[in-house]
């Protein structure tokens, strides 16, 4: 190997370069193996060369489960294509397994006849035992029917680094083996190394020897794949034909954070983010904390309740009061959200949903907090509920959340989930004038000022900020008298105010776009969805439509209130099927509101729907 360490081959060997349309790779290894990083590097490179991409990271819940153990396996799935794709792929075509546990955990997901690249060095007695393999799967029938490439990655990597006289400990050298594997994959899928080389240089700018080691590992992996006969063929995936424009890769959490900063700029109001660390929402706090030059105030509170209460306090002064968490955190915040409903202040609550109940599955995705958002508070306590459909859509829905919160003086729930939060896709960058304006009006006229007087169109109350002379008033959680806002226990007034608060939220329906139908307006089956199921549903329906089936889909981004045309849309179909990562929460709401016999298609496994699962379900009703 030594001859090929330093320089990549000068001439491109076009040895059996085969073109493919779409590839799904899953990188899997121990949580200490750097698989998230490897996957992310491969994704960035693929995006930049113009493939469409979609990713699904899969972290273990423990920070560091014992090395080599089954719970310690970390995975990263990437789908890249020359087509317009919407999901990280149903089944990997290629599995990179850095140890026996990674093979064990992921093998069942691999497509029949799929490709496995294994690091044979880790298949020793001890690791096999940790992975509960009675015999070595590389030597028995376990992998029959798959295409297997056995690479002693650990040894090759160490040898290359030793030969280059890298001055690092053996343990540190061993840490570079993920870049060796990445190099192999770069050759196999005909990707340039430049992006990753640059990343290494800047990431380890202060540790030049570490940078050198990783660079050597990457190049050696690449050259090894190129020069040895381990692979007879390599593949290329062309640029995708997607809408023209400028793109960047973005995860849902990044898009959420940037979206709220954008909303703050569009509204001309500073953003205040109150939050308490929680998986999988913490990255939003980290990202927002980096944007202080936009006047963003981030507040890491002592608990979930303080986080939302501080956001409410900030709203009271005219900031964009935002709080973010996951399901268990929302449970703690609900009383305060009721206070914001009662005081009629704008507030946005981000819920990056995860597996529940209780602590549940912190690192896995789920959509089971819809009821919690719509109905989960004491009393008749309506709030607007919206949900982004894709990672990039998180940006636009963040702006939508702020727009509605200010216009209707009400809390707005923003329901993301673990899959959207960590999944990435290309984001076509909008130009600033494409973005909606957010109008914010504050009261300043003391003549006849009444803090709970209603705007005729929106039914919202005037927003009078502390500091405005002559508009001093008191808000609070006790029932308010209509118009004056004074404490009031009169039964008729209470009944009236309950109806009024509901009517105000219902009014938002006049202000949200109609739900669009993907396909014909009438037909046999409508697949209705919300949130992160968008990609799988749309791809499944597209496939069925290509087969000539009478299937359409519609995706809700507004869940309370529903778009005004939803009732009519539902009536156009014989059957409505609703795939959800819960036990049928949207289906229940649809049945209750529209008296439509909707079919709930539930999957609560901490994983997104596969396209084929939805195809099969729909076929039952065709």
């Amino acid at each position: 190997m030594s001859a090929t360490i330093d320089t990549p081959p000068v001439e491109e060997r076009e040895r059996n370069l085969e073109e493919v349309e779409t590839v799904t790779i899953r990188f899997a290894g121990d949580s200490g193996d750097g698989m998230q990083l490897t996957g992310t590097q491969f994704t960035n490179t693929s995006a930049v060369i113009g493939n469409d991409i979609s990713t699904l990271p899969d972290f273990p819940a423990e920070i560091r489960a014992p090395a080599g153990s089954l719970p310690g396996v970390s995975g990263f799935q990437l789908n890249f294509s020359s087509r317009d794709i919407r999901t990280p792929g149903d089944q990997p075509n290629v599995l990179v397994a850095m140890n026996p546990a990674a093979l064990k955990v992921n093998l069942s997901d691999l497509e029949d006849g799929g490709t496995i690249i294994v690091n044979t060095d880790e298949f020793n007695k001890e690791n096999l035992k940790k992975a509960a393999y009675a015999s070595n799967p590389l030597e028995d029938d376990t992998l029959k029917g798959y295409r297997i490439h056995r690479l002693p990655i650990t040894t090759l990597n160490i040898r290359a680094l030793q030969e280059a006289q890298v001055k690092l400990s053996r343990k540190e050298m061993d840490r570079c083996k993920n870049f060796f594997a990445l190099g192999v994959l770069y050759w196999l899928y005909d990707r340039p190394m430049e992006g990753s080389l640059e990343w290494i240089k800047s990431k380890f700018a202060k540790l030049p020897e570490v940078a050198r080691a990783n660079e050597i590992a990457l190049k050696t992996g690449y050259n090894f794949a190129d020069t040895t006969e381990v692979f007879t063929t390599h593949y290329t995936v062309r640029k995708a034909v997607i809408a023209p424009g400028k793109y960047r890769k973005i995860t849902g959490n990044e898009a959420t954070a940037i979206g709220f900063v954008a909303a703050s700029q569009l509204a001309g109001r500073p953003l205040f983010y109150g939050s308490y660390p929680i998986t999988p929402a913490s990255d939003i706090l980290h990202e927002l904390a980096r944007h202080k030059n936009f006047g963003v105030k981030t507040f890491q509170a002592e608990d979930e309740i303080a986080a939302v209460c501080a956001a409410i306090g900030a709203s009271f002064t005219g900031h964009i009061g935002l709080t973010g968490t996951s399901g268990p955190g929302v449970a703690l915040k609900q009383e305060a959200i009721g206070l914001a409903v009662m005081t009629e202040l704008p507030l946005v609550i981000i819920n990056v949903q995860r597996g529940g109940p209780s602590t549940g599955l912190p690192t896995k995705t789920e959509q089971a907090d819809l009821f919690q958002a719509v109905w989960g508070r004491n009393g008749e306590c309506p709030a607007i509920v919206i949900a982004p459909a894709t990672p990039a859509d998180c940006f636009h829905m963040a702006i939508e959340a702020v727009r509605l919160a200010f216009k209707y003086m009400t809390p707005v729930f923003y329901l993301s989930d673990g899959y959207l939060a960590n999944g990435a896709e290309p984001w076509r960058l909008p130009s600033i004038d494409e973005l909606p304006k957010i109008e914010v009006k504050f009261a300043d006229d003391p003549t006849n000022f009444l803090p709970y007087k209603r705007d005729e169109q929106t039914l919202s109350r005037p927003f009078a900020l502390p500091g405005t002379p002559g508009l001093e008033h008191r808000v609070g959680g006790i029932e308010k008298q209509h118009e004056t806002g004074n404490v009031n226990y009169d039964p008729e007034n209470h009944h009236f105010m309950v109806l009024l608060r509901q009517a105000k939220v219902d009014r938002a329906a006049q202000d949200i776009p109609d739900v669009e139908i993907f396909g014909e307006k009438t037909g046999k089956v409508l697949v209705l969805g919300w949130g992160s199921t968008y990609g799988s549903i749309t791809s499944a329906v597209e496939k069925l439509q290509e087969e000539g089936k009478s299937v359409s889909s519609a995706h809700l981004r507004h869940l309370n209130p529903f778009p005004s045309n939803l009732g009519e849309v539902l009536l156009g179909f014989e059957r409505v099927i609703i795939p959800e990562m819960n036990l049928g929460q949207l289906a229940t709401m649809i049945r209750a509101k529209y008296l439509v016999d909707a079919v709930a298609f539930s999957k609560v496994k901490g994983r997104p729907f596969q396209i084929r699962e939805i195809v099969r379900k729909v076929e039952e009703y065709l």
Partner: protein
Amino acid sequence: MSTNGNGMNENKMDDALVDEGAGGGNVSGGGPSPESEPGSVVAGVPAPPPGKLTKADFTSDQEVRWCPGCGDYAILNNVQKVMPELGVPREKVVFVSGIGCSSRFPYYMNTYGFHSIHGRAPAVATGIKSSNPELSVWVITGDGDALSIGGNHFMHAIRRNLDINYILFNNRIYGLTKGQYSPTSEFGKKTKSTPMGVIDYPINPASLAIASEATFVARTIDIDVKHLGAVVNAAAHHKGVSFVEVYQNCNIFNDGAFDSFAERAVRAENVLYLEHGQPMIFGKNRDKAIRMNGTLPEVIQLGSETGLNETDALIHDAHERDPSVAFMLARMEHPNFPQPVGIFRDVQRETYEDLLAQQIETAIAQKGAGSLEKLINSGEMWTVE
């Protein structure tokens, strides 16, 4: 309280009905004294043209609904009286409260007000003050609200040192829910929820505030109105969190809880008025004092019999950064000691809202004011044609 059960006017408490008390009034604890600085400011809030507002300007049109004779009236009355002296325009004042009898307070102040939920007033106030530092923010809370359900926020709001005034009405009972014991109720107390006596040990609010890194901690008594007014005034002038514990009589569910030292007749004898720079002397005849005996405080008798005089007394230093002595003083209790009131601690530290503003300024200086265009167009980008 001298007016207990007299069926006094529910809405307006006549000042004359309140015992002006003995010995109170001087709370020179630090911070600029209001007298010495005409048109003075509450830290950070610009002063309006002086001398315009009166107590009536700070009185809202809402009917006050506390029980007749409740100590809350005296506190409300005095806060309304002190407000014009602070020189803060009414619209810049926000009262925030939680739940409980005392938490109705904001409704009676003709300022901005936020009656929030149980225990959470400090968190709401944190959001208000950090997003608009121009406002003069007051938290009104009770012993249950602040120390039971809101215990967590108490500690954290205080340690962050926002420039807010945090007034805790301590009546050692749950009033609004009609008479259950609170975290400050005495051990063994029989209440509706503890017919055989309380078996958990009470907490001391002032010492807890000191332990939570408060920069200003004071204590006063509802019926000692001059002292109360002066303490509230000093609290308002302290830049940083100002925690004030007010012993407040709940004449319905815990009447006379503080009588043994707070009653006018015994107050001079049983209360120690802490004054910065002054020896800790007390007693009707000012013939007793506090001094250290090893690591513990003790009461000494001054005079020819003992041969001890003023110079033997401990001198109060509210500005001492080390909180140990303040903590010790806050924990002295009648009858073993005189009950200390006044300012235990008054030190300076940068406030949360100032540090936050500085970080924003630094970020802008380093990266330039945020541009939406740049925010969107950043990271690794590529173009599809």
